[in-house]
């Protein structure tokens, strides 16, 4: 347990995503360890999330705690399973030098950060579960917490991607004169030429920087969109997480409506 906490602490502190390591395309933490961290953190928030179902006035069932504890880590990991191939292909197309395994590690680390934040909000969720009867409030609160933790995870991912692509932006060393007396490279010629023929050195590397920065941003936006859409739909498939007070416990619900419609319905019902 202590070792797991140390890993989570390292994850949050960016010990596995140091800029120099990312720039070298190196992420040194076993995938199995990252999955284990995701499972434990997701499970701990799931317990808090399912508490409402266990304590609701009607149809109370402790099975909801078990179901939510299993479903929260599954939500994140299954979303990754579905989205990973497209995420990797897109980043590879954008010339990311991270291997498939390292891309998976990076995404698992971002999910770990997200879940760690979510787990840290578990006591707050438990507190509101114990102090409120409003199902709509619990739905909105959980969505807000998932969103807040998600934003932190995304911020982490964006920073990491910036480092991954910065590797290519590093300025090259200035051209060295050939020790065997070969002609000096163009820039040196320009510097030693008479005033009349001195030309500015060609901007070989300058236009490349914004392109790569833009590429990192595009990859980030695409990853976020794909992961968010898949995640929202996966959440909808795996529902219920909180447990409607008027319905009996069930592992899954029938196929109907969608995530966004349900969220805005819960939000509107807070006012009525």
């Amino acid at each position, binding site marked *: 347990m202590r070792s797991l906490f140390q890993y989570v602490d390292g994850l949050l502190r960016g010990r596995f995503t140091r800029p120099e390591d990312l720039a070298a395309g190196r992420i040194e933490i076993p995938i199995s360890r990252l999955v284990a961290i995701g499972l434990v953190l997701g499970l701990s928030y799931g317990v808090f999330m399912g508490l409402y179902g266990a304590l609701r006035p009607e149809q109370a069932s402790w099975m909801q705690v078990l179901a939510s504890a299993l479903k929260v880590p599954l939500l994140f990991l299954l979303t990754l399973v579905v989205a990973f191939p497209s995420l990797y292909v897109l980043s590879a197309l954008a010339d990311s030098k991270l291997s498939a395994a390292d891309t998976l590690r990076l995404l698992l680390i971002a999910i770990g950060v997200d879940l760690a*934040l979510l*787990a840290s909000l578990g*006591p707050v969720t438990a*507190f*509101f579960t114990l102090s*409120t009867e409003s199902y709509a*409030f619990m739905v909105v609160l959980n969505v807000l917490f998932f969103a807040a933790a998600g934003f932190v995870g995304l911020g982490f991912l964006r920073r990491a991607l910036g480092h991954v692509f910065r590797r290519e932006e590093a300025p090259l060393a200035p051209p060295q004169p050939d020790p065997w007396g070969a002609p000096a490279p163009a820039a040196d010629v320009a510097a030693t030429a008479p005033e009349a023929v001195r030309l500015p050195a060609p901007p070989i590397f300058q236009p490349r920087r914004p392109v790569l920065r833009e590429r990192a941003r595009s990859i980030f936006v695409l990853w976020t969109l794909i992961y968010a859409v898949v995640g929202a739909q996966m959440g909808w498939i795996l529902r219920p997480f909180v447990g409607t007070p008027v319905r009996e416990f069930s592992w899954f619900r029938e196929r109907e409506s969608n995530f966004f419609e349900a969220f805005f319905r819960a939000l509107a019902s*807070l*006012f009525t």
Partner: protein
Amino acid sequence: MKLALDLRHLLHGTGEFGPRAAGLPWRRLVALLLLFAALHGACVGAFGLRGLQILYSALKLPLLLGLSTAICLPNFYAVNAVLGLRDDFGAALRGVLATQATVAVVLASLSPLVALIYVSSDSYPLAIVGNGVLFAVAALGGQVTLARHYEVLIARNARHLWARRTWLVLYVFVAIQLAWMLRPFVGAPEMATSFFRSGPWSNAYVVVLRALSALFA
């Protein structure tokens, strides 16, 4: 003597409770918080001079300050770690605990004013509003301590600003609901003394939203 010294250090931001201290004297900070919050709670509960209400409020005020802090601490740790401020967490925690202790001490220092309000009028609404205003004053006093600690931290790393903002938002969000749950603190004269209000717990935010909705309906 030791207590007076601790109070001086806390209010002046010096010694072990200061922003530049090395350790984390959390036990003494928590002890100060519990002691002074209980003192003020007893004073708040004295509205109807009912012994049981005085006892309940003396228990509830430390519970309010302590529990709301405890509920938000895991997230405070996670936010600090993810912002790359883990090495400063001890100092940040000292700042937060010192802030809560300061709120309790300021509240206790305002207790004579509460007594004055109670003695000068038997109006329950006045007692509620008066206590609310004094609590707001104490919260502002706490912010002085928090700002003092965070001034040093922010100078070290500007990201501490975000950690402080996150802490405040979550803490206020939780504390409002906890205060709603733990009511009554003053004790309505026409109601029997009880630790919690009768009936199931409700949600402060849902109540406010529904009241607002009813206003515009």
